[in-house]
């Protein structure tokens, strides 16, 4: 049994309006283009982008037999401005983390600034928060490419 609390914040500037950045999260076809890190693949994803909505995403490394399952609930949504989510992540059956994820989008010149704040409790050494930070940095870079 172990419990480790941690958090990190990533700030990115995009040459896209807040409405476009928000749409990239809100619209399933758009989110599917970027919402997985590195070379990992999503094998299953449900969408329910509304307050109280819950989604399931199954994903893992290419060719690997590790199956990760993220269950996300949308806690607070302010169009073009903010998304707050809670989530659990499992490595096969083992619960590895419970997280609170806040995405804030602010206008910046002709573009936007996105601030992602990740707060988590990491459980039983199932994963390290440093891995999650690397993962989200990769995902936000992909979001930037998708917005070009």
């Amino acid at each position, binding site marked *: *049994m172990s*419990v480790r*609390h941690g958090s990190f914040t990533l700030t990115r500037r995009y040459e896209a309006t807040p409405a476009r950045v928000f749409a990239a999260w809100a619209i399933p076809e758009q989110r599917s283009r970027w919402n997985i890190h590195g070379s990992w693949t999503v094998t299953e994803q449900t969408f329910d982008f509304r307050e109280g909505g819950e989604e399931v995403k199954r994903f893992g490394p290419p060719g690997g037999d590790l199956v990760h399952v993220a269950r996300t609930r949308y806690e607070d949504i302010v169009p073009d401005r903010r998304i707050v989510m*809670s989530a659990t992540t499992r490595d096969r059956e083992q619960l590895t983390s419970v997280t*609170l994820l*806040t995405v804030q989008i602010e206008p910046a010149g002709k573009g936007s600034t996105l601030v992602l*704040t990740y707060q988590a409790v990491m459980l039983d050494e199932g994963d390290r928060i440093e891995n999650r930070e690397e993962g989200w940095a990769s995902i936000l870079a992909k979001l930037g490419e998708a917005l070009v």
Partner: protein
Amino acid sequence: MTERSVRHAKFTIERIYPAARERVFKAFADPRSKAKWFVGPDNWDKSNHQLDFRVGGKETVSGGPPGGPVHYYNATYQDIVPNERIVTTYEMHLDKTRISVSLGTVEFKAAGSGTKLILTEQGAFLDGFDRPELREEGTRSLVDQLGTALEKGVV
């Protein structure tokens, strides 16, 4: 456009209770026990407390000063390890306004013949309607009320 803000914060509260871990855990797990201490100040109006203590289960309670705004607590149980730990996510509303979303962890550790409780909250406080300092103060009151309930033998 409405003024929007988010303040992220974390606080930890520790208490040692002269009661066995099983008893302290039960004060969280058993709906009738939890309702005895998980309440606002004495003068607040209260609504009925609902607790479905299992992974994926919900807990709701509301209350507030007479004639004042109503505070709503809506939680989901994310992880339960009997006598060891409980992880919840919860949101709070003040009347119809969502004021925070939080991640709460409670750890139960043996401390001699008693129990050390470690409560950690990580939260996103929304639009300036609430402050982490107030939440910490309110949470301290709750764990003190738990201590009193354990001392009196009502939980």
